[in-house]
């Protein structure tokens, strides 16, 4: 399944680039991420609990950052597998300055297999969009100091 979109963040391009690759930021913002541990150059082991109301599942996986082109673009590869199936995401993130902030464009592909794919097909499109939205919401929230 192809995924694409963009999101405007209230940070300059370089800050944004660093934040998106900061494991502690990713750990906080990736929906369901329970832990992210560095296991190698640009590679992190991840434990996550995907939870969507009644639907939930534990996944063990990996996050990898590749094709760095500071501060313009990089590739984020996520994969996880658990009892209810597996998921694999491969996306190119492109950062461009816009209106004093940064527009983060993403384009990539998500592959899902196992039970979630066989019985949850009709929810896949909606839920992947929702997960991405949650990620950016969390990111925006965690990067913007609360207004007084």
């Amino acid at each position, binding site marked *: *399944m192809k995924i694409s979109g963009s999101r405007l963040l209230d940070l300059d391009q370089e800050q944004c680039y660093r934040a998106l690759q900061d494991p502690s930021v990713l750990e906080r913002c990736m929906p369901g991420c329970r832990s992210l541990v560095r296991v190698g150059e640009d590679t992190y082991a991840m434990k996550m609990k995907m939870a969507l109301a009644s639907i939930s599942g534990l996944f063990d996986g990996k996050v990898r950052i590749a094709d760095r082109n500071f501060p313009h673009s990089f590739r984020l590869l996520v994969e996880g*597998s658990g*009892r209810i*199936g*597996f998921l694999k995401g491969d996306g190119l993130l492109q950062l461009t300055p816009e209106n004093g902030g940064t527009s983060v464009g993403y384009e990539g592909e998500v*592959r*899902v*297999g*196992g*039970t979630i*794919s*066989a*019985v949850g*097909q*009709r929810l896949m499109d909606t839920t992947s969009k929702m997960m991405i939205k949650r990620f950016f919401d969390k990111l925006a929230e965690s990067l913007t100091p609360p207004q007084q």
Partner: protein
Amino acid sequence: METTVTKKTERLIGKPIRRREDPRLITGTATYVEDIELPGMHYAAVVRSPHPAADIKGIDTGAAEQHPGVVAVYTGKDIDHLGAVPCGISLPDLRIPHHHLLAQDRVYYVGHPVAVVVANDRYIAADAVDLVEVEYEPTDSVSEPEEALEAGAPAVHAEWPDNVAFTHHQEGGDIEKAFAEADVIVKERIVSQRLAPSAMEPRGTVASWNSGDESLTVYSSTQIPHILRTLMAGVLGLPEHKLRVIAPEVGGGFGSKCELYPEEALTAFIAMKIGKPVKWVLTRRDEFLATIHGRGHIDYYELAAKKDGTMLGLKVKIIQDVGSFHMLLTPAMPTLSVLMLPGLYRFKNVHADVVGVFTHRMATDLYRGAGRPEATHGIERMVEVLAAELGMDPVELRTKNFVPPSDFPYDTPMGVSYDSGNYAAILEKAVQTVGYSQLREEQQEARRQGRLMGIGIATYGEICAFGPSPALPTGGWESATVKIEPSGQVTVMTGVSPHGQGSQTTFSQIAADELGVDIDDIVVTHGDTSTVQHGVGTFGSRNTAVGGTALVLAIRELKEKIETYGAMLLESDDVSYAAGVCTCNKTGKTVTLGEIAMTSWTGPTYPANTQPGLVATNYWEPPNFAFPFGAHIVVSEVDRDTGEVAIQRYLAVDDCGKVINPLLVDGQVHGGVAQGLGQALYEQVVYDDTGQLVTGEYMDYALPKAAMVPTIETDRTETPSPVNPLGVKGVGEAGTIAASPAVVNSVVDALSHLGVRHIDMPLTPEKIWKLVQQGGSA
């Protein structure tokens, strides 16, 4: 002497009597595989691959094995000494990959069995499946057959990088000449999508090992108990006479239970290993993943004709999506299509090329119609395309090209011989019944109002009543044993293995008439290899035509013996048997069948050169297939705004030869039509572009519900088959074969004035809406 046989005069053949199977089925007392409970029963559950293609790097069964209640976990290495899942077809270039019961170092489709867990409770077995850790390294996969044929596509089996599973070529006449002489050539790419057979009872097996006499009893939801026994004995390396296979009540099959599945043999293997009875029943999700799919054709048609509509030649290229492994009859599906490519038409020149293609999907194999629906869909669509091209009425075009009644038996260019028929007459009957010319007027009026009304016609000819034996790897005969018990009651054992067809009823009707006894004095049994003589089974619309004939011939043989005994008891050399009574033609003295039967078993004396007992077995080998035919007409209306299709009328006029029980024949037609209509409008097995099965439950695979099927009107003509003494042909698959082109033709007809010539199935509202949009209609 007391007798239980009453004199019977009423003939039952041709009567709509209600089924003898039903009392157990309507009271919940029938026994399906899942209902079998044996002391000490254990439960097996299968771990399946979530990947379409991956190397197995390791399997950790430790946690599962230690789970309380789990007795064993088996993986590929535990069964690599066992035989492969068999393919029974031979073709010159057939490539058969070794199909292990469990994956070895690679998986080849989503759902591929990787391990099996065994526990003393089904809930624990389900838990333990989740505890088996399999490490996969996914590799590239290919799921569309045409992509698999492209250079550089991932190889499903490394040894055959072109992904070609087999090729087949067949031709008759002179195709080049036909195309050279043609005024018009129409071409179309026609897809028959993958379908899930979807018997309501999921597959299942119970196996029980007796270590004392080293014998195995296997209950399986199968259409072919005897063949299953031979195959399973081979896979397990067990002497065949130590294996008893029982097909208990079977909840539908439609071809999908005409296999040896890996799980069936695994269940048996486990029962032998652990020395306890083992039950394994598929879930519906597993059923979608790991029961064979039907169809899976991409066909390229070219039809050559004269301006006046005379059809000259037909060229077809068939691409069959095989899946990753062959099952029992997989390669025969497209070759069966080839036999019926000409339909009911007098083509002299036909040319067919088949390529079977490996893909990373579950195997395809026989599903109701098996190869014939694809062929019929193709030719009946092409006739419509030609009619549109020539501006001819499709009824007229068909009638012009039908094989005429005077030409039977008719040898087709595909090398088969149509047994009997009157094709023009059945289409005429359908056209009259439905009021065709008036419907065309209504259609004109509808179009004036901006409504999209369509009239779809499909005629079909079907090859069924399988054998004869050269056509089948199993033998194409069928068997029957008839035994008159000492009390005069009749036991019939048939080698067919019905699972919803109602053969206990039709065979009782046949036996009652042939023997002249009351139907209540007849019991028909089947499906147990230790009590029933060897048999072939139920598929290819063969029960009545082949099994019923074996029954008739066994009874006829028995009647001679009855008369021999009658002659002895009546002390006459001139007796005749009829209606349950043997009569001396000189004195008029009589003796009943009951008295004869008792004497035959208990003596004290027997006729000279005659063995005790009234029992006869017949194995009947048919000399030819039978060829039922028919004409179905559908009236539909398309919602211009949304593309939804409403079927307003469905008329099925079929000729299945002599009818034994019209109630059951109608039932077969209705059920068949619903399945063909399901293919036309709703059903499709979908693998996404990463090889994942995304129609994995009834939430996404649309099996027709009552409100999605129209009222089905039926009518008949009756042209006896000369192939068998009953004159019957077969009706199990007819409806399915006719329905998909009839429905699609009606919808294409509704849109024809917008320039639409063909739509691939299923006709989803979205697909149709898009066509309406593109048609630029006002």
